[in-house]
């Protein structure tokens, strides 16, 4: 490819670079971090996505090692962030299941785990 063609593509790539573009809302990261271990049961789980979310159609559920739902059910959505408070639970593996609708109308879902205990 000629150099001029390569330079000609730079504005296109900048336009498409990750940012505020409309796109599927994919999980970017979470707290507690995906697959990681925390010493004590967290008071809440927070997920950050790659796009802004529609609050009315975005949800997250958390179950404790016994399979019992420990989230309060009151999901808070602000921009690209979604949080839910947790009731106290024990040690072991917690499962987080999420489903969100991004502002551009794409639905995505997923799940992950984190561990509680020493």
């Amino acid at each position, binding site marked *: 490819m000629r150099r001029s063609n390569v330079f000609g*593509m730079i504005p296109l790539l900048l336009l498409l670079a990750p940012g505020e573009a*409309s796109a599927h809302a994919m999980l970017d990261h979470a707290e507690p971090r995906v*697959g990681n271990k925390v010493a004590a049961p967290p008071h809440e789980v927070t997920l950050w996505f790659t796009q802004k979310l529609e609050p009315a159609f975005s949800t997250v559920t958390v179950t404790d090692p016994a399979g019992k739902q420990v989230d309060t059910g009151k999901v808070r959505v602000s921009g690209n962030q979604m949080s839910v408070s947790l009731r106290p639970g024990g040690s072991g593996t917690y499962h987080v299941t999420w489903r969100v609708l991004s502002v551009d109308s*794409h639905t995505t879902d997923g799940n992950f785990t984190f561990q509680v205990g020493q």
Partner: protein
Amino acid sequence: MSIRHARAGLSGLAIALVPLSPGVAHEIVGNRFFPATLGIDDPGVNDELALPTVDSFKTGDVPPVRQRDISGEFSKRITEDFAVSFGSTYTFLGPTDPTAAGANGFQNLDTTFKYRVYKNAEHEFVMSVGLSVDWGGTGAKSVGADPFNTYTPNFYFGKGLGDLPDTLSWVRPVAITGQVGYAIPGSNSTTTFGIDPGSGLATVDTEFHPRVLNWGATIQYSMPYLKTAVVDLGLPDFVNRMIPLVEANLQTPVANTLTSGTMTTGTINPGVIWVGNTFQVGIEALIPINRQSGTNVGVIAQLHLFLDDIDPHGIGKPIFGNAVQPASPFARN
């Protein structure tokens, strides 16, 4: 676009069977993002544009020919599960013998109709069927474009390993995709009449056009999947967007093989795809599996745009129906 044969030949040279077309389509199934792969088409149905795909390699001809291609493909969803794609390739042929002339021109136009048959988010499985048509006579004979149509029914699948047990969690980011097609030429043979320059007698040369099994697969390790569904290792974002993969892209003549033989040709393509929010870029080596498939390691690269993410309410939505499922947004498959 399906796996396709580019019959790259300068006048008088043997025909080289090499993979040429870029794959188009990406797919999201539950936790799993299947990227658009460069060698074979993957199981997704979506609105997207692969432009450009560039490759360079030496063919298996004797003497070999340096082939460079630049191609593009546009895929448009008609409904949520059905899409039509249009592709075109421009080929540059440069002989390694300096006394021979080169050639360049378009390959035949290609159209693929693709329907997603099944999708299972829990098991990260997706399956599609399609029909590719290579429109004969729309390309240049000097670069090997056939004067007849070729019809290729295709089967595509993708399977993520995210449903493996916790003891195998590090394997969960692995996914496998595959494609099998059966290329049926619209003409069984081509007969050429000529005069033998030595004897002056008339000659008849018949070339049979084989029916070819096009088959290929990929194995991928998704760093985005590792970070968001298995374990967040705190790696740099640049690394977390990579999907290293190996593709196999193979062709086996299986019928009407009197003049072609039945030897399998193709390439093994190790490489990496980097995934952004609205595009991906990929680069792979093209390693020929035998002498007939090529004479050196080539390279293929692609810029791929996710039109459904760039313009979700315009060109990126199906013509009929919405990309959304508003009736029951929390219903699971």
